[in-house]
């Protein structure tokens, strides 16, 4: 088993990284590329704190082999702020106090983006279902659901994309 070179696109940048055998996408993003918004709350696929988009789809980076992300387009939370401007979805999290300790937030915002990209006008229950793989221990979820509702409303008002 040897280290391997893989190429992938992360937040719009082409990256070539050397990976250890069985390295996860999370290892590559957090440790190699230092994209530390990708959190590591359980390593079991149970908390969603490591959520990223792979080719536009919500994935858990802790359960994704880096080798299998070769050639993929990966978006982490950092990828939402390429121009530094805070996006409406993030702004809605701020305005609704949808974070306390903040550890779940990066995964939560990415999961919300995945939901809104697919369904720009979700019902409350669709939001609850869309975020059901992401745990939060502080807020009681209600502010998070409200933030996503507000973001969806803002997007429909302006016709913009989620991020």
């Amino acid at each position, binding site marked *: 088993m040897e280290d391997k070179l893989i190429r992938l696109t992360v937040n719009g940048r082409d990256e070539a990284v050397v990976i250890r055998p069985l390295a996860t996408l999370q290892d590559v993003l957090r440790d190699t590329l230092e994209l530390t918004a*990708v959190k590591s*709350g359980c390593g079991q696929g149970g908390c969603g704190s490591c959520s990223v988009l792979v080719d536009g789809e919500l994935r858990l980076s802790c359960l994704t082999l880096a080798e299998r992300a070769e050639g993929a387009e990966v978006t982490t939370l950092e990828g939402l702020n390429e121009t530094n401007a805070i996006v409406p979805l993030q702004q809605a999290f701020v305005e609704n106090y949808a974070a306390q300790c903040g550890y779940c937030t990066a995964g939560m915002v990415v999961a919300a983006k995945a939901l809104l990209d697919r369904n720009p006008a979700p019902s409350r229950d669709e939001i609850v279902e869309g975020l059901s793989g992401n745990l939060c221990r*502080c807020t009681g979820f209600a502010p998070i659901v409200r933030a996503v509702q507000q973001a969806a409303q803002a997007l429909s008002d302006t016709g913009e994309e989620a991020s």
Partner: protein
Amino acid sequence: MSMKELGVVGRNVGQRDLESHARGQTTYYEDVHYPRMLHLKMHRSAEPHANIVKVDTRKAAASPGVVCVLTHEDLPGKKVWNGLAAVGVGPEDEPVLAFDKVRWRGEPIVAVIAETPEAARAGAAKVEVEYDPLPGVFDVEEAISGSAPALTAHWPHNHYIYPDDHAASQIRFGDVEKGFAEADHIVEDKYQTSPIEQAPMETNGCIAKPGGDGRITVHTNTQAVHFARDNTAAILGLAPGKLRFLGGTVGGGFGGKVDVAVEPISVLAAMRTGRPVKFKYTREEEMQVSSTRSAWRLYIKDGVMNDGRIVARKITSYQDSGAYLRFSSYGSMKHAGHMPGPYTMPNVWVDARVVFTNRPPSSAMRGFGVMAASFAIELQMDKVAKTIGMDPWQLRLLNAYRNGDMRAHRKVNEDAAMVETIQAAARLAGHELPAEYQAMTSWDRKAS
């Protein structure tokens, strides 16, 4: 207290870290990157209670990528400790790394430090421990029944010993037996809470980074940086000034990050290797190894008059401390001191015991000692109301403590607003109270 006109206190100014959270830019302990960082994994006891016959670390040390293996023999300072020793709580009863005996499944025995987390895990799995299993005890009342094996010589009857040889943290106020004799009704029940995991989204962890000048910087998610630093120094026999603890932004605590569970061994590993060392609990460790909220069992006996006055309350409670003390004696004192809840009673008797079992050690969580007390008391209040056929709202208002009342711990009550809070909740819930109950205030006991 008369309040002057306030400016920014009382205003909603937002929360400072929210934007950096939403952007994923908040820096937690493990978001710093150091080259040549090593990773620590712990080999833990597979038995809940056993004598350790032999520990063989040779295969672990020879495992690919393993740099260093630490057992109790490598500890330069204390072999056993308690976090509150500096403020006089003792005796120190918990091994930093187990040596002669293990007392709970998951107890740390050998630390394995390697180039990668996977190599450290593989190395830790190769530590061989030979056990001579002992019978375990898991139930608090069984543990103190006299027929259970004693966990340590410190506690021959498996319960904590308070000053003056008391078996419990006590409250003795009035005469409960006299109160029971006078009461129209006796209401009794048993209550049980469960061990609960704080479950912060970020598990316990730290990175210990040698500075090259003999000092070590520890990035940690402890809830108490000075406490963690001073205990780490005391455990390792270091001058505290050798250590700098950096923290302050934590991915959730809830009481689960007070144990100084990861820092001492990481600092020792960093001192040994001269390299940064990271020790991060897996979620599995966080669930089954890190302290839980203590489980509590309570027996409550009330003497109640026909008019609803509770004239005597006797409480015996058992806090399941698990195998070691940690902060349990503090928790039981807080628990006892909280009794009998937000109510005034002339006769109160409390025995709050800390009991040792072969379970993972328990500790603080959000509302240490008080959550279980509130749970039991408020279920008991409903039973009292039902027994005497009284509206449970009125029962609570009648008995609610007032300013100026003497509490069971003999402090005169101040800052009370229980009556107003209950009245407001009744209004919010649409529960109509009779006029005399609406007219009650937290200041009316002295007037009546």
